[in-house]
């Protein structure tokens, strides 16, 4: 995290997309230190450094609701420093890191150390998520109130579901009183049963153990029922099935505070793409073609609240093994925006303003915070080009891991600058721009 500064930065000639104020206009933005001080057409300031955002979109800072920074415990795969530098390259100004570190983030002192490490070494804001149960073991409630005071923004036993309906009900009731959202990784362990990809024709052909879609939807159904019962805030992580989406839709119709996120890999790939390449192994697994279409429809119609990366670094040796022995997960910060542009915006499935919502006000609403570009607001800003042509090379990433199925992919659209508290923490070299 950058320290406070005093300088003036003028972002000129960009197209400002601010979902909170429904602004879509050619506006300039003047930043003074960590704050936005002026927003409007044709601003001028003789003292300010000028950032020329011609042909670019200027948006509130992107928030990633779901990532794994691996610190403490698995620093071979990632650290807060390397992970957040990768996040900055992806246009994210804040990332929510899941508690499945070693040890699990289930107490205030660990939360505090993550917050401190984030402030000391992070390129962007680090917002920890605390475990719902001690050790995420699904037995006793973690010290959630103390973790809230230390800085958690949500609770989750991510990597697995909150173990039982009874515990989930207690977690929801308790978190409701603390005004924290509960994020659940929906999975029925008995149906999951050691599977490694989505059950279907492809899993049968490859001889890989399948995980039925119902593993997710049954657990999502449980959670939605309990959210209705407890009237609490439920957020379903990395949703991948039509069934789970329908439960969320149902809850929203009832006016419940139920939200969900979808990852770029789940709307880009499907189970038919799976090969004996562990970069196609993630949890939840890549969905069927029909489920992918349903997720895209949900992203378009507003049922899905946010795009989250589920950035899950694993050091190369741990992924370079037999498919069924590899850990689940892929890295995702640096490809998230480009995949969303390529798969959803350039194909006409969603608009650019909707994209911005899915990365900004959408996740902010899940966390119960504001996200806007307005006078007085914190100067967390993401500037991106919707058209810049580039090729993703994982070897160039600051992340310690390389586990991605998108290495070598050519994209249209990329982050150009990431601004946190008025400081440019990432700026793309534009020598290779191709319009």
């Amino acid at each position: 995290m950058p320290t406070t500064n005093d300088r003036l930065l003028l972002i000129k000639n960009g197209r400002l997309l601010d979902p909170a104020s429904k602004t879509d206009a050619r506006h300039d933005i003047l930043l003074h230190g960590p704050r936005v001080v002026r927003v409007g057409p044709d601003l001028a300031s003789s003292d300010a450094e000028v950032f020329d955002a011609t042909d670019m979109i200027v948006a509130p800072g992107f928030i990633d609701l779901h990532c794994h920074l691996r610190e403490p415990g698995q620093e071979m795969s990632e650290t807060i420093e390397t992970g957040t530098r990768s996040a900055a390259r992806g246009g994210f100004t804040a990332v929510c890191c899941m508690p499945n570190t070693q040890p699990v983030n289930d107490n205030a002192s660990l939360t505090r150390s993550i917050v401190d490490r984030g402030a000391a070494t992070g390129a962007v804001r680090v917002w920890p998520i605390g475990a719902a149960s001690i050790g995420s073991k699904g037995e006793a409630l973690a010290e959630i109130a103390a973790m809230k005071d230390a800085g958690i923004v949500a609770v989750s036993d991510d990597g697995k579901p909150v173990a039982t309906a009874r515990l989930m009900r207690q977690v929801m009731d308790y978190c409701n009183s603390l005004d924290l959202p509960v994020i659940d990784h929906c999975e029925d362990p008995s149906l999951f049963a050691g599977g490694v990809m989505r059950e279907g024709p492809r899993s049968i052909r490859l001889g890989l153990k399948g995980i039925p879609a119902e593993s997710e939807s049954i657990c999502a159904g449980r959670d939605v029922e309990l959210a209705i019962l407890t009237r609490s805030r439920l957020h379903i992580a990395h949703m991948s099935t039509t069934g789970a989406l329908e439960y969320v839709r149902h809850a929203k119709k009832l006016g419940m505070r139920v939200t969900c996120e979808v990852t770029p890999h789940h709307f880009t790939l499907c189970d038919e793409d799976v090969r004996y390449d562990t970069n196609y192994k993630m949890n939840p697994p890549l969905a069927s073609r029909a489920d992918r279409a349903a997720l895209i429809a949900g992203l378009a119609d507003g049922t899905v609240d946010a795009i989250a990366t589920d950035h899950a670094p694993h050091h190369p040796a741990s992924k370079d093994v037999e498919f069924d022995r590899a850990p689940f997960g892929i890295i995702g910060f640096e490809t998230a925006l480009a995949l969303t542009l390529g798969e959803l915006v350039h194909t006409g499935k969603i608009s650019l303003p909707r994209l911005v919502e899915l990365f900004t006000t959408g996740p902010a609403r899940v966390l119960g915070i504001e996200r806007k570009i307005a006078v007085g607001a914190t100067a967390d800003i993401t500037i991106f080009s919707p058209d810049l042509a580039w090729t993703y090379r994982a070897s160039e990433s600051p992340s310690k891991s390389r586990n991605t199925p998108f290495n070598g992919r050519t994209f249209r659209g990329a982050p150009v600058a990431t601004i946190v508290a008025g400081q440019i923490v990432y700026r793309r070299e534009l020598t290779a721009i191709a319009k």
Partner: protein
Amino acid sequence: MLQRLEHLLGIEDLTREQISFILDQAKPFQEFQRHPLKKLATLRGKTVALAFFENSTRTRISFATAAARLGADTMNLQAESSSLKKGESLLDTVRTLEAMRPDGIVIRHSSSGAPEFVADRLGVPIVNAGDGTHEHPTQALLDALTIRDRKGQLEGWNLTILGDVLHSRVARSNIHLLSKFGVRITLCGPAMWVPRELETLAPDVRRVTRIEEALDGADVIIALRVQTERLHDPALAAEEYILRYQLTPQRLKLARPGALVLHPGPMIRGLEIDDAVADGPQSCVLEQVTNGLAIRMALLYHLVGGAAVEPPPAKVPDKAQ
């Protein structure tokens, strides 16, 4: 022009021509098995590594014998004695093997896709001797050779596969192979072992739950091993399987007269197959074993010998007079 095989990883990606070529190549090696002196010098000086990461007796002995009869030396790696037990990765293990300069590696592994994983990372011909629940290509080839010998051709038959098809790599390889020759395939077994997605493996694959219906009109029957030692969770009582799916003489009568009965072994008499069927005139189980040697010799000759796509060596003796 026939495309030369670099590896044998599975049947799915082979063409009908490549399969016919391998079967034709096996012909002289079949005859060779009857010769009193079973040793060729074709692969003298070559080394075949047998990397069996999953227990196997029959397939390992078959490959070892095939290599020996071609004059090759073998290196043996077995799961129990290997450093895998000590936590070494598959990649490090096979790289160590490769550093001993074998001319080919035969690999069996409990993980689907492991032979492909190895083939992608090493510069040595790889033969898949069975991977997880994916493929067992040499088994399908020896089955095809057996069917072709007995029935004169592969094309046009009705094949029935009985048992736990879901977890069977033998079934998958056979489905891929025989469907390329226009064989109509019927799968039959307890419903949880025969999921509907199996019908998408190849054209002309159907599922039937009643064995009587599955056997009606069958020209060839493959009874799969009911693998009680693994994969069945929850287990099905053996009595249940016997009651509904055991291949008995009475049930065999429903098939076409002279229908062939194949079994990949090891066979559990009294479970998936009745004694009288296993030992009856329609049973091909011992021919399958002998044909396995011929197929594996042909493959090693082709892949390890680095031979061009041409007839097998003149040294193979003519059929014993």
